[in-house]
């Protein structure tokens, strides 16, 4: 299955790369520079991954509803369920819980195989949408 890189500019690319396959799943390989002092995946990098995965789904949802619409994060909540290790491949998914005209509620998770690393929810404002 082919994959393409998401969030390719600036911090998304600097901290990544994060790839997305044709089935819509996001993948990320843990390297040395992503670790904390205990050789686990750094909490900041985990939240960055959650921000990239939830943000990509939010942007895509907004753009489907209104071409040209963009999103801005209002809130992100991340729960640290277990730790990631160097060499692990992290898989991320996110779904739209609710979409209003101006706000998106997104829910997602990061896993390594069947082990849950993080659950996350985000609230995004839609901007650039046509006035109703």
């Amino acid at each position, binding site marked *: 299955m082919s994959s393409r890189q998401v969030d390719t500019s600036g911090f998304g690319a600097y901290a990544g790369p994060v790839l997305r396959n044709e089935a819509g799943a996001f993948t990320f390989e843990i390297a040395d520079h992503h670790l904390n002092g205990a050789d686990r995946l750094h909490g*900041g990098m985990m939240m960055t991954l959650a921000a990239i995965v939830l943000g990509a789904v939010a942007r895509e949802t907004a753009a489907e509803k209104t071409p040209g619409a963009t999103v801005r*994060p209002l809130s992100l909540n991340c729960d640290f369920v277990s730790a990631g290790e160097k060499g692990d491949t992290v898989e991320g998914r996110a779904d739209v819980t609710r979409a209003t005209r101006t706000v998106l509620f997104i829910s997602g998770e990061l896993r390594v195989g069947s082990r849950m690393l993080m659950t996350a929810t985000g609230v995004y404002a839609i901007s650039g949408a046509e006035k109703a």
Partner: protein
Amino acid sequence: MRQPLPSPVNVEPPQGWKPSDLHDPFEAYVGPLFEREENGERIFGFIADERHADETGAVHEGMLMTFADAFLGGAAHRGAGERSCVTLSLQASFLTEARAGDFIECRTRIDRTTRAIIFVSGRFSVGEEDVMTATSLWKVLGER
């Protein structure tokens, strides 16, 4: 004492600030990060550059949350009597955009300490304007 890790870019600290000693590879990778003392309180800061921003120049929420994790975690560690802590949960509210070139400061507060859990919040500002607030929960390792 372990040597602090170097950051990939050299950034002069603003006047009155010194570089933080970073021992987590990911913090060094996004750094340097700075700190200073103000009336006995430790304040943290970083200068956002193009590494931290997106294509519009807005600082990525992942970078802001990494900065939060680093220094809310430092506050939890001190609140737990220098014992090791791990992040259980962190919630961030993004009040307004921070931009590449901004100097972003973080002030932390211990909201409550129990034997096993530390509650820490943080306020993040650029100049006089708050850009993010965060609340977090930390587990003191080995306590129950």
